[in-house]
């Protein structure tokens, strides 16, 4: 039990450091055990330092930096222990265009192993999809679905 936790923690921590600096194009981040001598109960700390900045508490990160840091953690968990599929509901809402681009690149890489269903308003993210569904609603409050080709998705935005 403890060794499985520690092995997983070490593997995720290694991925997290690497994926964080890929998504932020620099900077560094670490996962740290709050109490390494007590593997059964220890908590996990996150330290994130965007490029050019001093290391600060998570609370000082901006909205977009928080979303990107959390996404780096999610992606590192998926790298170490993939689930068959993963649903992401507007995780890219706070990201600026450059960060959406880096998010998309990493998503496309992970999609070799894990299936993704991504709900998004971001054109950049839609462009990475093989299949696109458009959801709409009639005046009777019933959801309807249409399968779109990528060029049709542009129009729905």
């Amino acid at each position, binding site marked *: 039990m403890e060794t499985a*936790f520690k*092995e*997983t923690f070490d593997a995720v921590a290694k991925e997290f450091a690497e994926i964080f600096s890929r998504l932020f194009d620099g900077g560094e981040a670490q996962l740290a055990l*709050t109490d390494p001598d007590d593997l059964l*109960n*220890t*908590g*996990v700390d*996150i330290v994130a330092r965007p490029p050019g900045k001093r290391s600060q508490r*998570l609370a000082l*990160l901006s909205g977009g930096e*928080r*979303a990107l*840091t*959390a996404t780096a*953690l*999610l992606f590192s*968990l998926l790298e*170490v*222990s*993939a*689930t*068959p*599929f*993963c*649903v*992401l*509901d*507007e*995780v890219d*809402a706070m990201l600026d265009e450059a960060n959406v681009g880096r998010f998309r690149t990493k998503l*496309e890489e992970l*999609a070799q192993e894990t*299936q*993704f*269903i*991504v*709900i*998004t*308003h971001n054109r950049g*993210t839609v462009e990475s*999809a*093989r*299949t*696109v*569904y458009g*959801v*709409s*609603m009639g*005046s*009777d*409050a*019933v*959801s*309807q*679905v249409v399968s*779109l080709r990528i060029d049709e*998705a542009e129009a*729905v*935005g």
Partner: protein
Amino acid sequence: MYLKRITLQGYKSFAEKTEFEFAEGITAIIGPNGTGKSNIADGIRWALGERSMTTLRAKSSADMIFVGGDGRSRAGMAQVSLTFDNTDASLPIDFSEVTISRRAYRSGENEYLINGSQILLRDIEELLAGSSLSERTYTVIGQGLVDAALSLRPDERRALFEEAA
């Protein structure tokens, strides 16, 4: 193993039988506000045995069932089915395709089915526990919840790593 299809009927805003076919790789779902995109994510969590109504933005099981709209009466039942490709046998069951379904009736009763035959929630949980689909918080990341892991206390975050172990 991957998710081949979702079918929703009478579930939240999906009054009519609606199917999504998925390939491997990335599928995007887009559309205006309030049209039912997040309801699909809720439907997936629900079919996998989600017990917490708050996570599903609901108060009771009846909130899962289509309440009606202009010129459209309410549904009596909600059903969501998830069909998995199991050719790699990651689900410990001898089918190349496995469909997990959940139904809710206005009476508050819930039914669970595997490939059409009724089973208990316990059986579903056991089946999933053997695969990497078991109760993973990071299988579905809800809207506005992407940074939830950052707001957890250090001891609460530990559970993420235990699930992955």
